[in-house]
Structure formats: C-alpha cells, structure tokens
C-alpha cells in the first residue's frame, strides 16, 4: 500500500482521512486508511477491518485520535488487537465578525493556533486584506447571512467583535443555533446586558444564552488588540480543555490533560 503518499495527498488536499495502525503481535504496523468514501489496507482480519473502519469514521467526524482494543476479528469487547486510530482533519474554522483593529490581532493569533481564519464585515472599506493580512479569507457580507450559509462544526470558533446590538442580535440568534465550540462576544458588561435583553426578547432561552462567552476572554487585564486576542485565544484553549484558566501555581491539578470534572469547582 502506498501508505504515506496517500496520506500526504489527503492532507495537502484538505480531505479528512484516518490512519489505523495495529500495535500488537504479528500484525504490528499493519495499516488501514479510512477516507470519506474509501478504505485501503488490511489489519489482519476482515472483521477487524470492518470494526476499525466504523470506529475510524466516528473518530474522524470528531477529529479525534484514540487507542482502541478489539477482539481478533473485530469483536468490540476484545483486547487482543490494539489499534491506534489517528484522524487527520482539515483545519478548524475561526469566523471573526467585524473588521476592526481587534480583528487583525485575532486573525493573527487564530492562524497561530491552527485555525483557518475568515473575517466577515458588511463594509467593503474595512474588510480588506491590507487591514487584516493574516486572515485566510475576507468576506464582505452581512454577518448573520454569512453565518446562516456557512458550515459550522463542533470545532468551529465564532468571534463576534461587532459590538453593536443591531448587528450582534441577528448574528447571535444564528450562532446559537449552530454547534460551534466557542461563541465569544466582545463588549462591556453594559453592552452585553442590553444584548442579552434583546436576545431574550427574540426568544433565546437561558441555556442557549449560557453558551456565550461574554464579556469575552480570560481576566488578564488585556487592553490592546493583541492582549485582547491573547485573552480570547486563552479562553478558547481553556474551554476546549475544560479548564477555568487561572494560574497553574494556584492549583494542584495535573498540568496537562482535561481537568477531572469533579475537581473543576476547586480550581
């Protein structure tokens, strides 16, 4: 099997692909590649190939990587066959709404974190590559209309920097219907209170409202666009890892990995 060329081609074309590698016994190193509509390779038995293909598709759709065990012919409760399944998914999207000074810094740090960054603003004078050089894409459109037509996955980050109720409310109404991982909304506490009131009036309930990260970012005293972008980026990372974002020296939790849920409140 042309293992590496198939994989590098998929990564280059931004096509999702999962690579399963067998880690036990005589089949050590055997591969199965699982693409959107194809499967190549052999892990040692037809049943195992089928079971790993199904598992691989599930992991791929969530962009997850995992070590799994199966029976010799793919039985789900077995432990004989150990298989490492690695997902290679295209970059997650970060959509930044509003082309302001903060958007330039946000685009830079979004890119730094591995996002594909798109900046959206209805005003062609502001939404330019010259003002936001690090954005992968700049779209002149009404934010709510853009988002309604966009593909949003559970790894997408939405950053709302428009901080104007007349843009924010229709946009957030759409944003809260998506599965986005993060919805950060810039604005003072007073601006946010007005926004929340308008959203409640539009029929958004408390559970939905609680998904909003507003005021946006971690409490690090950020002032400049760059500092604010770091504060927002840190909040995205913290939420992804189920962390609260304090100082590590002030906790006794492990430094790496998700914080155990039971201990979260003690941070």
């Amino acid at each position, binding site marked *: 099997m042309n293992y590496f060329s198939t994989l590098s081609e998929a990564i280059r074309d931004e096509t999702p692909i999962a690579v399963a590698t067998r880690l036990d016994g005589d089949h050590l190193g055997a591969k199965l590649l699982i693409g959107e509509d194809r499967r190549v390779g052999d892990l040692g038995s037809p049943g195992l190939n089928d079971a790993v293909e199904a598992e691989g598709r599930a992991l791929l759709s969530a962009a997850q990587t995992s070590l799994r065990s199966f029976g010799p012919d793919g039985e789900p409760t077995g432990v004989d066959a150990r298989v*490492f399944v*690695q997902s*290679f998914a295209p970059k997650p999207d970060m959509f930044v709404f509003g082309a302001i000074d903060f958007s330039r810094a946000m685009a830079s740090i979004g890119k730094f974190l591995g996002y594909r960054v798109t900046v959206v603003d209805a005003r062609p004078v502001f939404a330019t590559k010259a003002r936001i050089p690090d954005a992968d894409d700049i779209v002149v459109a009404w934010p709510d209309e853009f988002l309604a037509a966009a593909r949003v996955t559970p790894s997408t980050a939405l950053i709302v920097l428009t901080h104007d109720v007349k843009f924010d409310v229709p946009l957030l109404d759409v944003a809260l219907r998506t599965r986005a991982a993060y919805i950060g909304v810039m604005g003072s506490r007073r601006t946010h209170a007005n926004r929340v009131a308008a959203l409640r009036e539009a029929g958004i309930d408390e559970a939905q409202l609680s998904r909003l990260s507003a005021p946006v970012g971690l409490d690090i005293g950020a002032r400049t666009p760059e500092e604010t972008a770091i504060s927002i980026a840190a909040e995205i990372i913290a939420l992804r890892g189920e962390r609260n974002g304090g100082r590590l020296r002030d906790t006794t939790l492990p430094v790496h990995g998700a914080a155990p849920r039971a201990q979260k409140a003690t941070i």
Partner: protein
Amino acid sequence: MNDIVEQIDRWRLAGQRVALATLVDVEFSAPRDPGASLAVSEHGEVAGSISGGCVESALYEEAQDAIATGRPRLITYGISDSEAIEHGLTCGGTLRVFVERLEW
C-alpha cells in the same frame, strides 16, 4: 503529523528513507497528546517532536535502527516524576511510542 508532512515529502523526493515515531498512548502528565510525531531521515535529520525533549534522543536511535532494518516497534518510556525532576525533564508519566519505517 500535519506539521511535518511537507518535510517528510521533501526527504522522500530526495530519495531518502524515513522513520516515523508516533506517540500513541500517554499516562499521567505529558506535554504532547497522542498523535504527536517525530520523523528522522536516513541522513539523520529530524522534524517534529514527541515530548518536551525527554525521549527524543532515545527515539532517534530507535528510528535509525528502524530505517536500517525495516522492523516496526512499540516502545514504552516510563519516567517517574522524581526521576524527571532529577534529570531536569519537563514530563512525568509514561509514554508509548510506535516507530516505523515509512512505506511510500
């Protein structure tokens, strides 16, 4: 591995053989998640990383051997917190790393 694919491709086009080490399992604290990878070329160049520097030099030897023999291997590195501190390493915990010669 996304970050080192281009480098591996360059080695491949230059006719070099390459070994890839992939972190497949982590217990306790480790700086990188499963899926982190390190590639070593036949000429001894390195791309990527597996840990914060704790196991890279040991892996380098394994990778060179995998290139020469074509034999894949699963290696467990156990580092207790006290040992890690003693050696000035950044990680405690146990790492399992799969090393293979890449088949193009």
